[in-house]
């Protein structure tokens, strides 16, 4: 007779781990909710969250309460200002303890916030997992069950399709190479363990070489993934320069040119408005535009502190010069305060006839920086500027080898785990018995399997029989 022990929520006991996901669609808006669910999520949230009021302890908060504060990075610096909601089991969507983090700071902070939850030990949820838990914990009714299945099927099938598409690209050869190397390393070890008479001890030099190649391969993947991430997450751009140099005009020009895909998201707890545009396919968040929009002498007064912060966070900073005034002491001061690697100098108002900034002057003051001449008013130099931004961004994320992949956080997590196993294997090579080494090498293979969806157990065996003459 079918019966799970009644009254006992057997299924509930299965979910001992904490999951996290972005619960708003990524990429389209600057606000987002990061949701965690599981037995330990409130503790986890407490590790990465600093309430405004230092006396507040979110682990003691009642269900359905809001707390204002910051998500902190690993060094204790604020990643984003957020509103945090605590919901206690069983009164939550999933029926477990749930923490929702409302981020305001745009795409990057949302992703970072997600990353911080993972740092605290939550794992990325599977497709439909929140809903599945909700159902299994009795929070959804029976007639909703089918809807849940549709969600799971739709999302995971789509995910699979995307993954397959990705694997069919140029990329597949890199991935295959990596797979091949790791499986070979695994086979070297396992063959020696299971067939000691025929295979003997593994050649450690060969093993080291194979593992090193695998590590390089994983690193390349991660780097390529970061480039892909750039296209997904975008960069931050700041505009600076002395008053009246044309900052707002440049901003309006950039936005106006791209109006169709501009999103205006008024922050709910702050006065800043961020503009997100795309430049050559790269999402660009223009920072602290509120400040620029204020009257220019106000900017002067609100002062240095605020623009400093903005500039420090930016990936690219456009520094505007005014041809009509020439290079002033003020320009030099601003210039001195900015990290040169991120800087593009835009010499504005080239349309004015009395040019006062010569190439020699620029070189004397700014060395070999990227310098563009143009006119915001006449809309000249804009193409050059965009090209320059793109080049800087791509250069920063490593050279382009034709590898352009969008790694999801889950894939990145698996790749990192695989790399850690490989590194650990390399460190313990010849230090530990073969079977302990195998724990690491097999771990690396299995982590990779999470990306490709393959189970490599059989493939390792296939490789042993193919490579070694086994059999007595």
């Amino acid at each position, binding site marked *: 007779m079918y019966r799970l022990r009644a009254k006992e929520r057997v299924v509930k006991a299965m979910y001992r781990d904490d999951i996290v996901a972005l619960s708003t669609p990524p990429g389209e808006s600057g606000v987002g909710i990061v949701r965690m669910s599981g037995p330990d999520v409130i503790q986890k949230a407490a590790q990465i969250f600093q309430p405004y009021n230092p006396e507040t302890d979110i682990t003691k908060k009642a269900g359905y309460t809001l707390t204002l504060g910051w998500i902190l990075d690993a060094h204790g610096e604020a990643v984003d200002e957020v509103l945090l909601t605590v919901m206690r089991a069983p009164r939550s969507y999933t029926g477990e303890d749930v923490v929702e983090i409302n981020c305001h700071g745009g795409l990057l902070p949302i992703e970072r916030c997600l990353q911080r939850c993972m740092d605290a030990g939550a794992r990325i949820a599977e497709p439909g997992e929140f809903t599945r838990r909700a159902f299994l914990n009795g929070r959804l009714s029976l007639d909703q069950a089918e809807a849940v*299945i549709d969600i799971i099927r739709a999302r995971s099938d789509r995910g699979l399709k995307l993954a397959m598409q990705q694997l069919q690209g140029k990329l597949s050869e890199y991935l295959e190479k990596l797979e091949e190397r790791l499986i070979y390393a695994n086979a070297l070890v396992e063959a020696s363990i299971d067939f000691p008479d025929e295979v003997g001890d593994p050649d450690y030099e060969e093993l080291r070489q194979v593992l090193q190649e695998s590590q390089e391969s994983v690193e390349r993947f991660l780097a390529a993934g970061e480039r892909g991430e750039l296209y997904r997450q975008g960069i931050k751009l700041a505009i600076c320069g002395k008053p009246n140099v044309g900052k707002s005009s440049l901003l309006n020009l950039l936005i106006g040119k791209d109006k169709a895909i501009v999103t205006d998201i008024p922050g709910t707890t702050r006065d800043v408005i961020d503009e997100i545009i795309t430049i050559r396919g790269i999402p660009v968040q223009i920072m602290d535009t509120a400040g620029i929009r204020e009257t220019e002498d106000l900017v002067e007064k609100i002062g240095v502190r605020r623009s400093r912060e903005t500039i420090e966070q930016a990936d690219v900073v456009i520094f505007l010069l005014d041809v009509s005034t020439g290079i002033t002491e003020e320009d030099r001061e601003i210039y001195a305060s900015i990290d040169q690697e991120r800087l593009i100098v835009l010499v504005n108002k080239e349309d004015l006839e009395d040019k006062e900034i010569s190439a020699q002057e620029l070189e004397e003051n700014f060395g070999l920086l990227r310098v563009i001449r143009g006119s915001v008013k006449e809309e000249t130099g804009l193409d050059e500027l965009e090209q320059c931004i793109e080049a800087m961004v791509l250069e920063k994320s490593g050279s382009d080898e034709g590898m352009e992949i969008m790694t999801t956080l889950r894939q990145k997590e698996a790749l990192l785990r695989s790399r850690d196993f490989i590194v650990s294997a390399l460190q313990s090579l010849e230090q530990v018995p073969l079977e302990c080494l195998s724990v690491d090498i097999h771990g690396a293979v299995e982590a990779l399997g999470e990306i490709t969806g393959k189970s490599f157990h059989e493939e390792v065996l296939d490789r042993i029989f193919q490579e070694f003459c086994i059999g007595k």
Partner: protein
Amino acid sequence: MIYEAGKYDVIVIGAGHAGCEAALAAARMGVQTLLITLNIDTIALMPCNPSIGGPAKAQLVREIDALGGEMGIMIDKANIQIRMINTAKGPAVQALRAQIDKKEYQKEMTKTLLDQENLDLLMGEAVAVETDDRGVSAIITRTGARFECGAVVITSGTYLQGRIIIGDVVYDGGPGNQYPATELSQSLKKLGLSMGRFKTGTPPRIDRKSVDFSKMIEQPGDEEPYCFSFMSDPPDREQLSCWLTHSTTETHAIVRANLDRAPMFTGVIQGKGPRYCPSFEDKVVHFANRDAHQLFIEPEGRDTDEMYIQGLNTSLPEDVQVQVLYSIPGLENVKMIRTGYAIEYDYVVPSQLKPSLECMKVEGLFTAGQINGTSGYEEAAAQGLIAGINAALKVKGQPPFTLLRSESYIGVLIDDLITKELHEPYRLLTSRAEYRLLLRQDNADLRLTEKGREIGLVSDERWNRFLAKKSKIEALRNTLQQLTVTPADDTISKFLRARKSAPIRDRISLWELLRRPEVKIENFVELDYIDQYEKEILDQVEIQAKYEGYINKQREQVQRFEKLENKPIPEDINYQDVYGLSSEAKQNLQEIRPVSIGQASRIGGVSPADISVLLIYLEKKRRNYEHEYGN
């Protein structure tokens, strides 16, 4: 004419390594048992290699022993050489391997069977299994005897429709020119079981007196006398050596020149053979760049001159086999005693079995050993033991006995067999076990003897021995964890200096100190910190201390694993009713009928999304049930 010959609780068909374990287990559990075999003179025959053990296989034997099975005790009585291999590769993969006196082994096992209470032996050929509406009801022999029974265990090895192949010579036969079983296969097909065909092979045997050992490398046994059984004490007996030689380019040329007469390549052999045990001609073809392959010359027994050539299994024509032998260093003048051959046989597709090894289609019918598509004496014995236990439990009306992948190699073996698609004869390997570090041969008793006791297979003597060992291990562990040393302790400081080990900085327990690779547990005995214990106690505790980190890591993995294993799927589930499963998953689940969510997740074509769907379906059913019948 059929006559009524009697009534038994359990009937075991076949007295090979699976059948012997099955019959002994059932009888020891107190049910009336009959063991039928084609030939009483070939009980526990070893028709292939004269050795037992090696990686994964030794662990199996230790598990069989820990549960109260017989194989380990037999090996200890009948071995002529014993070695511990893989010693440098870690405690979990090191493995005992014994060379066996084949005749001695048969003699000891036959005696054990005859002495066993509740067990009858009968020579005969089972030709049919009868069923009624409750499942298995009787078996019938070729000579017309009809035995009623509650359960049947078929352990027919490679005898079902056995066919021997030597070059172009092909004839019906079981291993070693035994009589094949020609009718039982048909009877099983009639019961609805789906059958497949596999191939395996064995090398020629030669006369010791014609071998020139001066051209070979001697392989003696270990000085230290090891035992397979937790019940045996190290024997004092002379060990015989094996010898290592190799094939030559001349050998390979002979093989290549005769491939047109090799049944492996001419299409005569249809059955699929094992990759881990390829024929010699296969090796020559697939590893064409190699000039030599290792060959081990092993004695078949203490009182015989017959020797086995490990590595030379072949179905080449007899005249070619002789030429091949002459081309091998040391065998230039050899006399061949038996010809190598390939054998094809029927097997039952094992995905039709439950974890208890009972057929899903026929209640009370169990299969074990090579009939399930495995190879190896050890794999056979392990399945025989489990099938015998479950046949006895079945007639007693008790729930089946099964083991998880996380607690034993037996669990890995059976789960693989019933869950995965089989493409070749199955051999157990340590790399098939996910939790290898936990499944060591040294702790098989700690893992399984309590379970063996519960089902009634562990004798009082074994039980008391086990309890004594366990309490000593506990005591030693406690001592090591409680005893601490400080930098001021001269004895330890001197000792560490002598070992070139870093000095200690703070108070540290001996347990922690033992984690250092250069510190051995014997050192603590020598330094008088702890008492002298038996070697197996010292070894056990040392392994627990030295590998604690890795072991704990695997324990955590096991906890996650077991959550899904302990989530049952009802037997009567109809996968056609489960909305949202992919069609491939539906088909495979319907066929394999997993007992738990964990097993379901290991079936090919079943994705994580399918598992979610299944979980939701089960929860829905549970709620419907609660709704209907209350809590």
